[in-house]
């Protein structure tokens, strides 16, 4: 494992809200995390423990109050807004809990969106790539549906296809199956796992579903803004 490159490293990352105000609260304390290429990691922990906050920081949507964050070796604290945006666009894919597709666009267009943002003008190559990605998640025949006219599971699969558009090194998924029935949740999870296996994309997936967590390479637990146990899933909750 030592020669596998590191995709993500957090060093003593802290996050406080209401900085400078009388009731400043620190919700993340000295978080150290390292993810290697190709890992599929579950992030678990009780509600309010700071998982989403952590994911937003890793996804460069938010900034840590203290500590250092490396994405594919880039130290991110010194980057300005434009560079941060560019790094986010190239290196990170997002899948959110409430299948955040843009309702004004079709499934295909949603998948094209990261490419369009990057290249400004749409072209056939983008369309073909988006089509291929939708095919990969089994939704090729739904590509012209508006995002809103699809079921939750389908929308989440579109979101996965979209997160892959830029071929990012790291995909962050915040409770991607939290709003889905068991069957859809399972298929969405397997879809991500398949991408991980076939493309070597690193995944960090927040979930409350212990069954799914067990099927990951390892589990990171956040409790009250601290890393709980850093061990393979089967050590946290041994298989019966």
């Amino acid at each position: 494992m030592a020669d596998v490159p590191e995709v993500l490293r957090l060093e003593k990352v802290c996050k406080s809200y209401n900085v400078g105000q009388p009731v400043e609260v620190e919700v993340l304390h000295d978080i150290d995390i390292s993810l290697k290429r190709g890992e599929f990691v579950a992030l678990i922990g009780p509600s309010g423990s700071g998982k989403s906050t952590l994911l937003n920081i890793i996804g460069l949507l938010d900034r840590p109050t203290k500590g250092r964050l490396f994405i594919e070796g880039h130290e991110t604290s010194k980057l300005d807004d434009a560079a941060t945006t560019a790094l986010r666009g190239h290196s990170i894919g997002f899948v959110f809990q409430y299948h955040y597709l843009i309702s004004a666009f079709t499934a295909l267009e949603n998948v094209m969106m990261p490419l369009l943002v990057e290249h400004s003008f749409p072209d056939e190559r983008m369309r073909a790539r988006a089509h291929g990605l939708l095919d990969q998640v089994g939704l090729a025949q739904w590509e012209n549906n508006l995002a809103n006219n699809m079921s939750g599971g389908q929308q989440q699969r579109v979101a996965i296809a979209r997160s892959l558009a830029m071929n990012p090194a790291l995909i962050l998924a915040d409770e991607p199956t939290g709003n889905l029935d068991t069957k859809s949740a399972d298929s969405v999870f397997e879809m991500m796992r398949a991408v991980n296996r076939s493309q070597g994309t690193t995944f960090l997936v927040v979930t409350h579903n212990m069954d799914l967590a067990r099927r990951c390479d390892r589990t990171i637990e956040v409790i009250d803004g601290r890393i709980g146990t850093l061990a393979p899933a089967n050590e946290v909750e041994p298989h019966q």
Partner: protein
Amino acid sequence: MNTWAPFEWITALRFLREGRMQTLFIVAAVAIGVAVIVFMSAMLSSLQANFIKRVLTSQPHIQLIPPDEIARPLRTSTRTEIVSPIVQRPAQRIRSIDQWQKIRAALSEWPEIVTVSPTMSASALAVRGDASRSITLTGIDPEVYFRIVRIPEYIVAGQPRVQTDDIIVGLDLAKDLGVALGDKLNVTSATGGARVLTISGIFDLGNKGANMRTTFVALRTAQALSRLVGGVTSIDLTVPDVYAAETIALAVQSATGVEADSWIKTNAQFFTAVNAQQTSNTLIRVFVGLSVAFGIASVLVVSVIQRQKDIGILRAMGSSRGQILRVFLVQGGLLGFLGSIVGAAMGGGAYMFWHSYLRQADGSEIFPLIFEPSLYVNAVLLAALTGVAAAAVPALRAAKLDPVVAIRG
């Protein structure tokens, strides 16, 4: 997805399309505002153009007239004490312009002047049997004068011909005196000259007063009748640039020493009215523009709040603050553009309706239909710019939105 449009335009169009009702209502609001402006401007410029055309085909652009005679107070021989302080304005005699031939020759050389026409005006009495009417005799050189005042266009009977014993009279004078083409008219001037003239043409200037008083005779005839042989009472000029008339008049005045009045000065009332209209027109434009701007801004402010999540997603997908800013600026510009296209069409339609509705009794049009493309193009451009400007505040808000806050909704 159109391949010719960049990300910002595609997204702006989709957002507008998705927000159907909002888009429709604000486009309607912009359209109404623009329609009012377009209709009003088209109507006003049509009225103005029509008035100016009438004035300019029935009046010289510049007229040189002899100075008024003034009386000076009587003083003692030492010239300090006024003996008789009450000064009455003297009655004005008919006087000729000094050395008018020289002035005419000089002015003919000016490149800014096209036509130079010496005329002789005098009051006279037209007598036919028991009936008599007071008239204004205008002695003209038809060759040049008709280039200034288009009498031939107004002739309803006979010819626009003035030979030595000819007179052209107005329709109402002919009716009043019961005369027709070819009839003889006894004309006696206020200074005592008398002559029998033959009616060679009858005109209708569309104005009863003018048709009653105005008559045209040969310059020499007028000079003879008013006992001012070789004199003229005015020199009429036309210029190619009618709006420069006042400036040229001042130059003529200082060059010749003869008072020169431009049509702009003699129609000062009209220009005062035009200016007042233009001021109110500008005020209306400004306020309509402001309400259009506020309308677009308020729709976009709401849209930014509604689209918070979309903005967050776009930011997460790697779009920059600049891109988000432009998505909303483009929306503002498009709303202004679409609304003003509809509004310009509505305003133009209303103008055409007004034009076809306003007819003379015989069904002919009162005003010419004037379509100035620049009015419509400017209205659309200005509305689009107003839209972009109005979008500035909401667009900045959208661009400044913290991605985390946007994602959380």
